[in-house]
């Protein structure tokens, strides 16, 4: 199990943006989705998730709105904005470059 603080700085943003890119989701849903997709490798704590969501919202990458959730109660759903989509592309590209670089080091060293 890996804590988010172990994640490379900025990776959490990438994960959130990517997850939300599929469909509007609330915080719980985002955490669960990441947990499922990574087969419980990445468990994002609320302490990291919500500040990150709020930061992304404040930066204009995400837009939030209140909607009825699958349980029937109102939840805050986050949607990727167009600016967010651009940002996601940028971060993905960076991530690719970084992981390639790391891969190179690991394989050759």
């Amino acid at each position, binding site marked *: 199990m890996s804590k988010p603080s172990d994640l490379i700085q900025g990776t959490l943003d990438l994960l959130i943006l990517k997850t939300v890119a599929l469909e509007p989701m*609330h*915080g*719980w849903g985002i*955490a669960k989705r990441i947990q499922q997709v990574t087969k419980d490798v990445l468990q994002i*704590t*609320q*302490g990291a998730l*919500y*500040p990150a969501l*709020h*930061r992304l*919202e*404040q*930066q*204009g990458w995400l*837009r939030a709105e*209140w909607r009825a*959730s699958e*349980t029937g*109660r*109102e*939840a*805050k759903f986050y949607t990727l*904005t*167009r*600016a967010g989509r*651009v940002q996601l592309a940028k971060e993905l590209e960076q991530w690719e470059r970084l992981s390639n670089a790391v891969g190179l080091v690991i394989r050759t060293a």
Partner: protein
Amino acid sequence: MQWGRRWNIARLRLRSLLRRNRVEAELDKELRYHLERQVEENLTAGMAAGDARLAALRMFGGVSQVQEECREMRRTEYLDNLWQDLRYAVRMLGRSPAFTIVVVLTLGLSIGANSAIFSVIDGVLLKPLPYPNADRIARVFYRSKVYAKFPMNPWDFADFRARNHSFESFAMYSRHDAQLSGAGEPVKLSGFRITSGYFRVLGVHPAMGREFDFSEERPGNGRVVILSDGLWRRQFGADTGILGRKVMLDSVPFTVIGVMAPDVDHPGNAYNAVAYGDTVDAWFPFVFEGNPAQRGSHFVEGIGRLRAGVTTLRAAAEFNAIMTELATRYPNDRNWTIYMAPLYDEIVGPVHRLLLVLLGAVGMVLLIACVNAANLLLARSSARQREIAVRAALGAGRGRLVRQMLAESLVLSMLGGGLGALLAVGGVRALIGMLPAGFPRVAGIHVNGMVFAFTAAIAVGTGLVFGLAPALQSSRLDLQQGLRERGGSATGRQARLRSALVVGEVSLACVLLVGAGVMLRSFMNLLNTNPGFQPQHVLTADISLPSKNYGTLEQISSFDRKLLVKMNEVAGVQAAGLGSDVPWTGYDENLGGFTIEGKQESPNNSFRARYHTASPEYFRAAGIPLLRGRFSTDGDTKDSPKVLIINQAMARAYWPNEDALGKRIDFFDDKPKESDWYTIVGIVGDVKDSPESGGVKPAFWWPVSQQAFEIRNQSVILRSTMDAGALASQLRAVVREIDPTLAVGHVRLLDRIASESYATPRISVYLVGLFAALALTLAAIGIYGVVSYSVGQRMHEFGMRMALGASPWDVVRLVMRQGLVLSFAGTVVGLGAALVFARALDSMLYGVRASDPVTLACVAAMAMGTAAAACYAPARRATRADPISALRAE
């Protein structure tokens, strides 16, 4: 897309700021939702209800921490910090109330003064004139070598109107007061005769009825009137059926054809002036009468609306071309050119400079207050070095420290601004009371939102200005040294900065003092000039005789005689006179041309002088001295040989080396009959147009019984042995007794008229003097602050000096020298600056120049004296330095 994002961000920030509770509630709800889902999951996993909740909470970590972190993401911590800073600032300021009170008071006074002057400037200069596209309205006058501004001739006007292409519409207007009678007490109306395009020029329309058209300018069609909204409400009870009704004006029926909209301002006029504003009661059509070839009489003023894109310069060029052409046909039109000015300049021109000078003065006061506050803050910050060092040591960054210090100065300036706003409200009321009677656009002066915005802006601005230097200065401290030293001493840099600030304060104060000084000298000069008449205990009033009942000279003379006889019988009347006008009630270019027996007019010396009428007692009543000869008497009647009184200026102008008495003048162009000649029988003293006017123009007075043409607007002038104001009711009663249809208007005391003539220089002296006094006080506080602080620092040194044999007097000299050196430097700089700045005042001064050496010397003495006084207390304190403890410490 970027814009969309920016907009989003801005919206969110604003929301977090303004709807804080809502945002917090949402955060709460969002986190709770997460928690509940976790609880549900735990329950599904088979936990007991209580355990499921506890486990969920445990997993969540500290809810409030998460909340706090989310809050931080909103980026409003900056403002929260500001709030903290402000609260801390208020606490710190509360701990040194003397400092706080001095700074807030000085800032409040200067901000208030600025706001008050700004409200006047806003109302008078900044607010657009209440006419659509007012910048296209221009005033048109004649100009000659002698007269800068002269009324037009009506027939010339007709030619200009027909031929010019510069104006969309061009009109003229001329004062024509009337008497409204028929219901109750007769009322004197302020009226104007206007040509048909007049209201189109102004861009205003009647609320009811119509404007005049061309047909009403023809003789016989002129008995129509347009009422002002005010008159319609006052005298006709806002009767909506008034159109078409006849009203009695000057005992003649006039048909009401229109009622103007409310708030239609009279644009002001120069000849027989009525002040700008809601000052006109009725308008009559201007009827063209007489011989169109006779163009010697000038009494109408032009006003026009320029076509879009046409400048006054271009329009004036076109008019001058027409004028040149007219001059070839009409000899009277020779030697005139056209002077055109935008309406705005005509209205506010006379006060423009005064207001800007006041704004400059008050701006300087604010600058001094800022410098003063900065100075006091610097002194305070050096005393607080330790506290600042501790804060820095505990991890406050420099930016944070600067912000903290700025918060303090902002709190001070806000308090000052609040006080200033209150003072401005009162100050504006006082200012309006002090403004001269004819001051333009006074009705538009209000302390409004614009003024409060200005006040807030200068409050914040001053807070930043006077706070920044001390904040940067004190945050730059050496941490170790700051922590080590107790109380701390000013660094050399800081001491130099503070001294420079004091020098600046003193020099600004000197500039203001010089301004106030020369204005005071100028005012004294005005007061000391002999007005040429004696205004004390004199009552004046206007009476106009309608031409219907007073068509002939006999009828006018008969009324005059009856009135004067009766008034002379009233107890307390020392002299009762009557004439065309009274001194200092307006400058009329009522020039009459004439022929002097045995003299030839030359182009350079045309025979012209101001004409007036006067009854025998007129001069005695006004207190104008007879220099030679005699006044007219009751024996000078229509049928007796005609006599004339002239002033000294006229005697000098036309009979420079001979005796004017006994010389003869004729006012008729064609061959005079023997009975047409007027013989000069008296020479009276000169009376200026107004106290500040340079010379006196030649003038003469026809006896009222022998006036060359009927002058029906007359002024009564009564000299009393007691309170002249008490004569008003008796005058009214006497007039009513002779003719109940006559109104007595403009009842005023002559000394009141005289003192109003001084109102502009008086208000300049008062205000600039007040600002200068404020500036000097601030400078004194500044000097005191610096010297007193340095004495505190040097007590030990003084003790040593005294222990080594210095007398207290030596110490006093040492301290005084510091203050006086600063003040001297400031005085030198200030007087230099004053010589440059004060030149702007020259045109406002009378009999003194802005570089007046007496004033400069007095100002220097005052600045040095104030510095000495400000140093006295610190110097006394220095002498109390204890030599023993100084030695012991060594």
